[in-house]
């Protein structure tokens, strides 16, 4: 189960992208996603693709990981792109049959949408593969800090996020154990009519819920026993350090932003 899931995994490599500050990476990724929706012609898409390509190259992570990130989504992406291709009419028509059109603009739009999805997945995979979950949580905490004046519980939210991330692999292991235990008792999760399969899922979900309810007070007790009293007066072990190179990277994304904005059709 864990092997197939690429999004949310971290791959430790000693690379340029890995050493960037998580705040810079998070900002840059968000900025990139915004630019992506401004792009609307070949030259802008080319620039954006090259930029991601450079990022992937600098991350030192094999390209196959990124392809594996796209794989579970590929049918959805192709379907969306095909819909665009088939149902967009334009001035340069090649073919028309009833409500199905194939036009130059349609094909182009379809390809752009395909590319846009792939680039979104690439850049977010790049972020999660090169940034530890906790560093990412720290970055989110940093950006949410201003909300404290509105009494928003920033520390509590980020602690919840960090604990949730910490327990993902534990719960996945547990889900697998429960699934196997139920299979051993004759429950099938992958065969039979759809309603039956959904019903069978209950035998996985209920034990999983109950064990989480069981886990929560134990964790809370352990935290309290170690002196956890909430967010006040806490020091932090993890430290984010903003270096010059982070500013440079962020600036380059701003340059990218303005270039794409100017070149769009």
């Amino acid at each position: 189960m864990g092997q197939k899931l690429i999004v949310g995994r971290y791959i430790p490599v000693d690379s340029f992208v890995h050493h960037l500050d998580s705040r810079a990476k998070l900002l840059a990724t968000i900025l990139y996603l915004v630019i992506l929706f401004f792009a609307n012609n070949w030259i802008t898409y080319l620039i954006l693709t090259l930029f991601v390509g450079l990022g992937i190259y600098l991350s030192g992570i094999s390209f196959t990981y990124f392809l594996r990130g796209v794989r579970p989504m590929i049918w959805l992406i192709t379907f969306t792109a095909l819909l665009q291709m088939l149902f967009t009419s334009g001035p340069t028509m090649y073919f028309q049959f009833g409500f199905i059109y194939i036009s130059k603009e349609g094909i182009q739009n379809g390809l752009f949408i395909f590319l846009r999805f792939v680039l979104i997945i690439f850049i977010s995979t790049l972020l999660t593969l090169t940034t530890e979950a906790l560093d990412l949580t720290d970055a989110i905490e940093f950006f949410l800090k201003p909300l404290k004046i509105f009494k928003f519980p920033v520390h509590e939210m980020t602690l919840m996020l960090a604990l949730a991330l910490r327990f993902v692999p534990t719960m996945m292991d547990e889900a697998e154990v429960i699934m196997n235990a139920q299979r051993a008792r004759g429950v099938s999760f992958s065969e039979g009519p759809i309603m039956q399969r959904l019903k069978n899922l209950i035998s996985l979900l209920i034990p999983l819920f109950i064990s989480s309810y069981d886990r929560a007070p134990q964790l809370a007790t352990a935290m309290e026993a170690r002196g956890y009293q909430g967010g006040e007066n806490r020091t932090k072990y993890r430290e984010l350090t903003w270096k010059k190179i982070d500013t440079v990277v962020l600036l380059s994304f701003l340059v990218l932003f303005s270039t794409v904005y100017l070149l769009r059709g």
Partner: protein
Amino acid sequence: MSLISLKNVSYRYSSTDDFLALNNISLTIEKGEWITLIGANGSGKSTLVKTLNGLNMPQEGTISVDGLTMNEENIWTIRQKVGMVFQNPDNQFVGSTVADDVAFGLENIGVPRDEMIERINRSLEQVGMQNFKQVEPARLSGGQKQRVAIAGILALEPEIIILDEATSMLDPKGRAEVLETVKAVKERSNLTVLSITHDINEAAHADRIFVLEKGQIKYVDVPEEIFKLGDQLIDLGLTIPFVEQLRYQLMNNNLHLPNEFMTKERLVEWLWKYDSKM
């Protein structure tokens, strides 16, 4: 003065319930002692240790830890003195890496970052996990996770370390590892250890054994004396040590052994002498 003393402590989980989880318990623990708490399931062992750091506040009686009386004011100071390692290694691992987890307790008490790093390194070294600093819990074995849990407690420099069935979910190897670690650390820093266990080998490490039954202390004695209880031990939630089992089997086969607790060496010696007499 004793490190921990309980005077007439009673605890009930619900005020409407007549059932006393702890019934008028008085005991003292000296500094540097290794105490093992045994008893059948539901005898109140876990309830008792949870009163020692205020996770359970007793309705009656007084508890003092290192000269401090347990009350709402002192509770956080006492929690720093009393470190607890719980049963399930997965459910007490807070951090997403080993170093983060050890840091958690230090962050809570506001230790500055430089000192924190030093203390993390030192305590991980004490439990032999210094090479696992950046490793995630999912990639550790149960025994390794418990050693990290111990390091997390050691970093807080407690007076007493409580093992609440901390080895019960581990395989024999992990169990031995954890016990060795605790033993080594105890000797080095003159810690007081209070362990709850159903494991006879762990109980044999103790200086004294407290036997709990239905929320009351039934026996307090050195392991040799407790092990003499023989069959009764099974009712108390413990198995008999291997040597005792062997002695009983031999006695059932009409071999007249002295009716006292024997260590492995003494039994071997006795059998050897017996053999030469024949």
